[in-house]
């Protein structure tokens, strides 16, 4: 994966597969280069046995292959920057993935197109409420599907191309303000 935002998209897809109706995506930067990514869902969660092997590449719930690389790839990426990844989960309650990456490290990929990631996640399921929050020393930007749905009403879906593309441009514009 060439961008941290692609790892985030990949891990968040697991939340959707797990039937989450609520997904919180939080990015916090401390100003000294550490970026903490928290992906928290209320999906069906994992049993303690599955949780133990969740970052093992030979653990997967997919049926097309016997390997599952999402979590191990993100973990490796975080570890290579001197950070790490932790998975907490309870059956029927949800899963939280926390990753820390050191952005100043030469092996740290750029955050990349986080607006693309978030806007695509907003259209992944009509039953999903997504909260996105990004904090840097310069400020905080937050967006939720709740506020968008309130404006759009029940007849216009977030998956409408015009809406998804607008959300993407809106997040992109606000993200630039967090850096200069």
């Amino acid at each position: 994966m060439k961008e941290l935002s692609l790892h985030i998209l990949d891990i968040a897809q697991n939340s959707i597969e797990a039937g989450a109706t609520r997904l919180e995506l939080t990015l916090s930067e401390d100003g000294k280069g550490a970026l903490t990514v928290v992906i928290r869902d209320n999906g069906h969660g994992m049993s303690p046995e599955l949780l133990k092997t969740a970052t093992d590449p030979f653990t997967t719930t997919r049926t097309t292959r016997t390997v599952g690389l999402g979590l191990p790839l993100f973990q490796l990426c975080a570890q290579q920057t001197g950070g790490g990844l932790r998975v907490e989960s309870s059956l029927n309650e949800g899963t939280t993935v926390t990753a820390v990456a050191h952005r100043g490290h030469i092996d740290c990929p750029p955050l990349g197109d986080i607006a693309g990631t978030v806007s695509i996640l907003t259209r992944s399921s009509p039953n999903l409420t997504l909260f996105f929050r990004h904090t840097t020393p310069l400020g905080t930007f937050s967006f939720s599907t709740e506020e968008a749905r309130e404006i759009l009403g029940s007849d216009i879906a977030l998956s409408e191309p015009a809406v998804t593309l607008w959300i993407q441009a809106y997040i992109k514009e606000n993200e630039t303000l967090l850096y200069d």
Partner: protein
Amino acid sequence: MKTLEELQAIRETMQKQLNVRESDGNNIRVVVGMATCGIAAGARPVLTAFLDEVNQHNLDHITVTQTGCIGVCRLEPIVEIFAPGEEKVTYVNMKPEMVPVIVNEHLVNHKIVTEYTIGAAE
């Protein structure tokens, strides 16, 4: 600077269009594989390119959705096209610049872009 009020304007434009939309009988579905394999191979910009094309040309009868692993990971990004009364068409090794060609030739003019299909790749 974009504000949430603009979303209100999009809603109003779209509500007018909803009334003149064609019936669902000729709805075409575009499905983009978005599992780890697809994402790593570049599925995200491909999906955005489809949204861009559909939006720009007001192709209301086309629905763009995302799914998990389609199964042939080495040929990702993979896009499947489901049109009523036609067999499923699978495009492989997708790049954003291939999207306008597929939309114009296949989705609008009903001519399959054979060189991009899984049959040509295998």
